[in-house]
C-alpha cells in the first residue's frame, strides 16, 4: 500500500512494471467463497438472493453515505466520465447535473436533489467544483491504448442465494493482454480502512466475473487528492472473501 502525489495514470503505469507476485488461482478462491456462503446460509431456500454491494463494506457513518455525500459522489462520477471523453466546461456542476439526470433517469437520489433548497444546492455546487479540480489534476492523461471505461457494472449470482453487485468508476487495461486490468474507485471522502474492504470487494468481483484477477485495484480521494494502489494477489482475494462472509454472517444474525 502506498500514498503518492503523482497522477493516477502515473501510478498505474509504474505498477505495471513492478508487479512481482503470480496471478492468483481464481477457481480456488471461488470454491473457498462458495464453501463460506454454504457455511453461513446453508442449503435453506431463499426467496430473494442476498444482495451485497461495495457500499456494504463502507462504514455506516462515512460522510459519503449520507444522501448529500451520495449525490456528491454521483456528480463526481459523472465529472470523471466527462473528463475522460475530453469534455471540458466552465461550470462543472451544471455539466455533471445534466449528465447525471440523463444517465440516471428517475431515482430516489434525483428526487432528493430536486427537493433540496437553494442554499444546499449552492453548497453542493461549490463542493463539486472543488472536488472536480482535484479529480482532473489527479487522474492524469490515460492513453487510448489503455482502453479506459467508466461506470462498469457487475451482477454475479453465486449458488442462487447471493448476488454480488458492483459499480466500478474506472477500469483500464485488458483481460486479453499481458498487463491485465486495473480497477479504480473514486471517492469523495478521505481514504480509510472501509475503503480497503471495498477495494478488496472490487478485486474479488472482477476476478469472479472474468476468471482472471485484475492486476491492481486503486483508489483516488477527491477530498484529499490521496491515491492508493494495491497489487491483487491470493492474500488480497482471500481477505476479500473473509470480508464478504463477515457481511453475510452479520446479515444472518440480524434476521
Amino acid at each position: 500500500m502506498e500514498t503518492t502525489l503523482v497522477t493516477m495514470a502515473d501510478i498505474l503505469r509504474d505498477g505495471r512494471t513492478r508487479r512481482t507476485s503470480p496471478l492468483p488461482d481464481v477457481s480456488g478462491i471461488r470454491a473457498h467463497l462458495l464453501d463460506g456462503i454454504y457455511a453461513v446460509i446453508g442449503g435453506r431456500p431463499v426467496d430473494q438472493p442476498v444482495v451485497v454491494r461495495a457500499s456494504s463494506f463502507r462504514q455506516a457513518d462515512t460522510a459519503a453515505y449520507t444522501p448529500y455525500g451520495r449525490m456528491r459522489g454521483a456528480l463526481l462520477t459523472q465529472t470523471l466520465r466527462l473528463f475522460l471523453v475530453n469534455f471540458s466546461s466552465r461550470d462543472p456542476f451544471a455539466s455533471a447535473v445534466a449528465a447525471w439526470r440523463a444517465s440516471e433517469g428517475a431515482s430516489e437520489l434525483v428526487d432528493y436533489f430536486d427537493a433540496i433548497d437553494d442554499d444546499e444546492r449552492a453548497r453542493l455546487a461549490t463542493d463539486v467544483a472543488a472536488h472536480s479540480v482535484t479529480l482532473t489534476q489527479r487522474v492524469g492523461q490515460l492513453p487510448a491504448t489503455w482502453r479506459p471505461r467508466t461506470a462498469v457494472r457487475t451482477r454475479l449470482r453465486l449458488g442462487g442465494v447471493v448476488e454480488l453487485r458492483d459499480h466500478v468508476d474506472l477500469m483500464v487495461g485488458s483481460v486479453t493482454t499481458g498487463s491485465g486490468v486495473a480497477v479504480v474507485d473514486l471517492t469523495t471522502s478521505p481514504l480509510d480502512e472501509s475503503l480497503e474492504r471495498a477495494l478488496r470487494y472490487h478485486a474479488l468481483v472482477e476476478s469472479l466475473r472474468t476468471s482472471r484477477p485484475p492486476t491492481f485495484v486503486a483508489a483516488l480521494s477527491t477530498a484529499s487528492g490521496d491515491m492508493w494502489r494495491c497489487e491483487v494477489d491470493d492474500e488480497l482475494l482471500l481477505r476479500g472473501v473473509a470480508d464478504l462472509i463477515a457481511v453475510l454472517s452479520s446479515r444472518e444474525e440480524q434476521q
Partner: protein
Amino acid sequence: MTYVQRSISSLDLSNLVTCEDDSFVISDEQRVSLATRFRSIPTTHRLRADAWMVERRGNTGRQFAWSPVTARRTIGNAALRRGGEVSSLLSAIHDVVDEHLFRAAKGYARHGTLGHWLAQQTSPVLAIVTAEAMTWGTTALETLESFGTPFSIAHSDAYYDVAGARTSLRGRRDALIATKNGRIVVRLRTGIPSPTAVAGLRADLTIDAFANVEGCAAQRIVGVWPDAGIALAVDGGESVIRAGARDLLRVAITQFRQHSSVAA
C-alpha cells in the same frame, strides 16, 4: 449440443467457436409456411417482433425511449466497425455522433430516430452518450477478443419483413465469426440473463436465418452477458429454428390481441 452455459473466460469462449456441424438451410416451403401463419393473424396494425418481446412473452412494458444507455449499442457498434479507420475508439465515437448530428441538421433524421434525439441534447448529455458508447465499445472489444478468433462487427441487425403479413421481425446481432462451415452470431447483453434468455437467443437466430437470402442459419448463436460473466450458446439446428419461429408467432398473436383489446 443444443444449449450450453459457460463463463466468459478466454478458454470457455474459445471453446464455443469450435463448431463442426453443417448449417441448417430453410427451404422455400418453410418460408412460405411461416408467411402463411403470420398472414392468418387478421391485423390492421403493423406488427413487430424481436427477441426482447419473446423474452417478455409479448408484454413489452414501457415504450422505448432514447437515453445514453439505449443509444450506446448503436453508437458503440458503429464506432467499432470503423476500427481500422481512426486512431482510437473515442475518435470513432465522436465521428459517429457527429454524423448523426449532421444528418439531423440536414433534415434527414426522422422523428424518433437516434439522430433526431441527439440533436435535441445539450453538450454534457452528448458527452455522457459518448462515455456510455465508449464503455460499451470497450467491453464489446474485450469480450470479442476473448473468443481468440477473427470476428467482424455486424453491419446491421437482421430484419425480415414477412411477405403480405404486415409483420416485421428484427434480430439483434453484434458480431459475426466465420467458421469452416458457416458463421456464428454473437450478441452482447447487459445485466444478468433472464430465465427466458435462451428463447430470446433462439428468436435472434431464427430471424437471422430468415433474413439470410439463402436461408442459411448460423451454426450457433452465442449470447454474452459481460456484467454477469456468463455466456449462453444455442445451436442453429432445425428444431431450434422451428421453436424460434413459434415463439415469434406467439408474440405477434399477443400483440394483435393487445391492439384488439385497446381498440375495443
